[in-house]
């Protein structure tokens, strides 16, 4: 399956959002009617530290084209320290993905507070644009999941 230039590529994007800041930020983006592409689907987690690298790889395996993790700004974690752990975990995971040849930018972490509806929407617009430019994820998918 190859994506030809004129065939419109609709990326599959999974966004993990922490319940206290980023999910609320996404809610605010919604109530402020700040448009971003429907390709982004949000999964609510209590804290960014709940996101296991396996979830991210699993998403890619099953055909996601981009995965973004949003949490409270460092220092503002509802659980005080969760996002600090998440930050280390993701820094290492992303570096490893880069190392094995996954295109830079397929994964992203963004800190979005409950007040940052605009930032949430902007981030998602940017991320979708980035993933669209990168095209389909072929390096991390399990071929069996192709249709």
């Amino acid at each position: 399956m190859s994506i030809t230039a004129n065939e419109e590529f609709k990326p599959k994007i999974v966004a993990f959002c922490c319940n206290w800041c980023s999910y609320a930020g996404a809610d605010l983006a919604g109530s402020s009617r700040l448009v971003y592409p429907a390709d982004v689907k949000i999964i609510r987690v209590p804290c960014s530290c709940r996101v296991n690298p396996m979830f991210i790889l699993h998403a890619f395996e099953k055909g996601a084209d981009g995965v973004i993790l949003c949490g409270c700004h460092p220092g503002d974690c509802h659980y005080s320290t969760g996002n600090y752990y998440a930050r280390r975990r993701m820094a290492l995971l992303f570096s490893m993905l880069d190392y094995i040849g996954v295109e830079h930018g397929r994964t992203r972490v963004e800190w979005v507070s409950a007040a940052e509806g605009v930032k949430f929407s902007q981030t998602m617009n940017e991320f979708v644009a980035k993933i669209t430019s990168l095209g389909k994820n072929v390096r991390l998918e399990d071929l069996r999941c192709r249709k």
Partner: protein
Amino acid sequence: MQEMINRAKELLSDGTVNRVLGWRRGDMSYNPEPSYFETAEDLDANFVYNGFCGANLSKYMIEGSKLEGKTLVFLKPCDSYSFNQLIAEHRVDRDKAYIIGVGCMGKLSFEKIKEQGVKGITNITIDDANENITVETLYGEKTLAYKDCMLERCHVCKGKEHQIFDETIGESRDTKDADRFAEVEKIEAMSPEEKFAFFQNELSRCIRCNACRNVCPACSCRKCVFDSTKFDSAQKANVDSFEERMFHIIRAFHVAGRCTDCGECSRVCPQGIPLHLFNRKFIKDIDEFYGEFQAGVDPEAKSPLTSFTFNDVEPGVTGGRR
């Protein structure tokens, strides 16, 4: 070696230890196996310590800690890091071990010997100075430089200081002659396409035998997440696809900050996959991002992934690129 046997016999006979964990002479020159010894006779007849005793006995002490009484365990300098790390994780019992740190001249790789065109080995002798090894084969005799036959890990040795021991026996030799991160840096410098092609090719050989995992002292889980139904990750398929990458990335991630870089994974891989390249990448990143950290030096130290600072680097900053 005789000194080790003598000391082991002493400790057995005076009741300090109930058994000895060491290496048993194999039926070939190159295949000694990790083994327990309980009698002086057995030690005299079968105990061996030489360049082929690469196996890291720390991992065996997980089970050894459950046995009655103390076990005398011989640890090479690099093995002692693993033992310390296992103490930190409550997987071995310090009080159940009597540790003799043994010297190390660098360990030999059967693969490296065979790579040099050796077939039909009937005997291997190592000279006293550990400079050369003489391989007698069905097709003639060959002398090889010891250095050329060493395991990759010995060329990037962390040093011959034991991190934990009750006493030490034997001399060591500095075998480091390469930069530990040189290979990682080489890959980091590749384009994404080259990187991907490199790892895809290496991992295409993976047969999911789990030797890397089962030999790894950091992979000490009672049940690996890849064997468990808890995570929907239990898959044994060997499809030329994402499976292996998932396994090796997650394995490296799970041992990140805990891996002492003992090199056992690469030693045992039947397909010669340089698995240490995964672990060493994380070690390099941890050093770069969070300050130098060597697992297994201090059992009290908090692992880099269970600690943090307020201004750690943001994800997306990639090791080796800055």
